[in-house]
């Protein structure tokens, strides 16, 4: 059993991280916040050229020919950088919608939960967006519409959402620790105080537990594993961002600090199909299927 990412997988993750550090650093993130609703098409094409959207498309169809584990690592990095845009919808449309794989076409999708992200900026919309009503989105980096249509959750979308949440949770942990080390009160870094230290420890525990669940689900592609990954990653991202905000104290409540961007994005993703109750019910049914506890242990 070699659960850790292979050298190739780590190289791919580092590549995505480097691309995003170069093309979507903190300055770019804040610039995007200042002009909400506009998508950086040049960056979109760069992502396309790097294979972000065509990652799982077979090589015969012009794709990169990789699998879910690689896609999970790439989406984790996107979540870590808070990269905006309908990444998931465009990735899932690669090979079906002309230009999606290359990043030439921006694809939005009606999520099973009844929300559409980035509808106004999309060239193509998957699903029935009739009667879409705009929301004054809480997340400055995700324009939202609601639609009456409802559908079932696609397990791949559920898993890649979990991967994005994992990345955001990781970023929340990093920011909290950074602040706890740098900020001094009572003559010491606040991270020396157990009350703060333990918040940070709990952040990491949630991140690492979610990571194991998300990576395993990418390997097995088992619906119950995916549901578990999603529940834990949603929790790690939302509670992680909340705790990160708390560690930041008053600064955490400002527009200027990045913490609120993590929390708001995490909130948006929890509303995508396949989270919360849906996953809990799937996992409850799984316990009665007679294989719940044991089958996947054999892997």
């Amino acid at each position: 059993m070699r659960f850790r990412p292979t050298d190739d997988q780590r190289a791919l993750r580092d590549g995505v991280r480097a691309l995003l550090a170069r093309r979507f650093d903190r300055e770019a993130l804040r610039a995007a916040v200042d002009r909400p609703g506009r998508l950086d098409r040049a960056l979109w094409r760069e992502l396309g050229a790097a294979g972000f959207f065509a990652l799982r498309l077979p090589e015969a169809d012009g794709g990169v020919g990789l699998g879910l584990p690689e896609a999970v690592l790439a989406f984790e990095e996107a979540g870590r950088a808070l990269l905006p845009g309908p990444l998931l919808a465009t990735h899932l449309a690669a090979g079906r919608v002309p230009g999606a794989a290359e990043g030439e076409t921006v694809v939005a999708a009606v999520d099973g939960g009844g929300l559409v992200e980035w509808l106004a900026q999309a060239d193509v919309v998957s699903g029935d967006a009739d009667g879409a009503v705009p929301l004054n989105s809480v997340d400055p980096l995700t324009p939202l519409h609601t639609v009456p249509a409802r559908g079932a959750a696609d397990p791949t979308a559920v898993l890649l959402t979990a991967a994005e949440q994992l990345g955001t949770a990781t970023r929340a942990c990093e920011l909290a620790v950074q602040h706890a080390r740098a900020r001094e009160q009572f003559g010491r870094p606040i991270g020396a105080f157990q009350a703060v230290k333990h918040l940070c420890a709990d952040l990491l525990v949630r991140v690492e537990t979610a990571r194991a669940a998300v990576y395993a689900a990418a390997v097995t592609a088992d619906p119950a594993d995916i549901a578990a990954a999603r529940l834990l990653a949603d929790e790690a991202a939302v509670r992680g961002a909340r705790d990160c905000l708390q560690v930041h104290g008053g600064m955490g409540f400002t527009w200027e600090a990045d913490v609120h961007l993590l929390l708001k994005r995490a909130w948006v993703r929890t509303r995508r199909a396949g989270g919360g109750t849906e996953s809990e019910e799937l996992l409850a049914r799984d316990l009665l299927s007679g294989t719940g506890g044991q089958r996947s242990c054999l892997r």
Partner: protein
Amino acid sequence: MDLSDSPEDAEFRARLREWLAKALPALPPKPSPDDWPGRRAYDLGWQRTLYEAGYADVHWEASPGVRLIFLEETEKAGAPYVGAGFVGLLHAGPTIAAEGTAEQRARWLPPVLRGEEVWCQGFSEPDAGSDLAALRTRARRDGDDYVVSGSKIWTSHAEVADWCELLVRTDPRAPKHRGITWLAMPMDAPGVTVRPLRTLAGSAEFAEVFLDEVRVPVANRVGAENDGWRVTMVTLSFERGTAFVGEVVACRRVLGELAVRARRDGRWDDPVLRRRLGRLNAEFRALWRLTQWNVSEAEAARGGVPGVGGSVFKLRYSQARQELYDTAAEVLGDAALDLDRPWVRDRLSSLSYTIAAGTSQIQRDIVAERILGLPKGR
């Protein structure tokens, strides 16, 4: 990322399963939890059976991945756990293997592997719990002996142990981590008194050990005088990462039984209970994956000091185990107050998990300081 067995691991698993299927039906009946001599005989008998089949040293010689398979398969087959063999196999034994002389290894290790001798642990004291290095049990040199006085607490299997791995203070003037020495103390030495402690579950799972001028030969010292803290730390995390493998497998089985029970009792229509069970399924699936992750990391760092991933796991697992048995109580309803019902005693014993082997608060300090690099401080 790969979760499948290598060909060698798959072969190990298949052979083990085949052997378990033959060996387990020959086991004697399980002794009652209060019958300590019976438990000792049962646990040592199982170790002897493992020894004869060539599995006795799996904890010492095998890779972390093979240990994971061993613990997973033995639990699934319903085989006994190490029980009274715990300290000998998973702590004192590895310590002697790493730090003992050839003579000490030859004296103490084979009886552990063969299931002939039981060890217990004399570390904690009434005034040295989380702050273990504050221990005060004194040992002074007198010729070829140390003369030891003091008291130890939370010592499991003390009533039936042959040996105690004992931490004593040999230099009261040195900084607290530097004046400690590791001794192997025979439990039948004059001056050793064992007083069982009753847990809140009503059973006597551990004891206090009082030491009054107990003579321990200097030859029983492992490592140098005053170097006992380092000697102990070398292997304190020996079992880390795989310590709870069997328990996670068992928890997943209990969770399945809870769901079946809830449906049988007409409780399945309660969406709050159902979703709570679903969430626990997510939790224990994730804990199983985290175990695999930690083992995979340990394999990659072979020969190195085990990672602190064990602290991350223990924090999450201890909480999940308590939540599991609280949910069991929810399923049981009024029966959760009846000690004769299944899961009720397990619920009580689950309360120790956030305390024993390093409280959750100490684990958070470890995670924050050693993984996240936050400054030391309380």
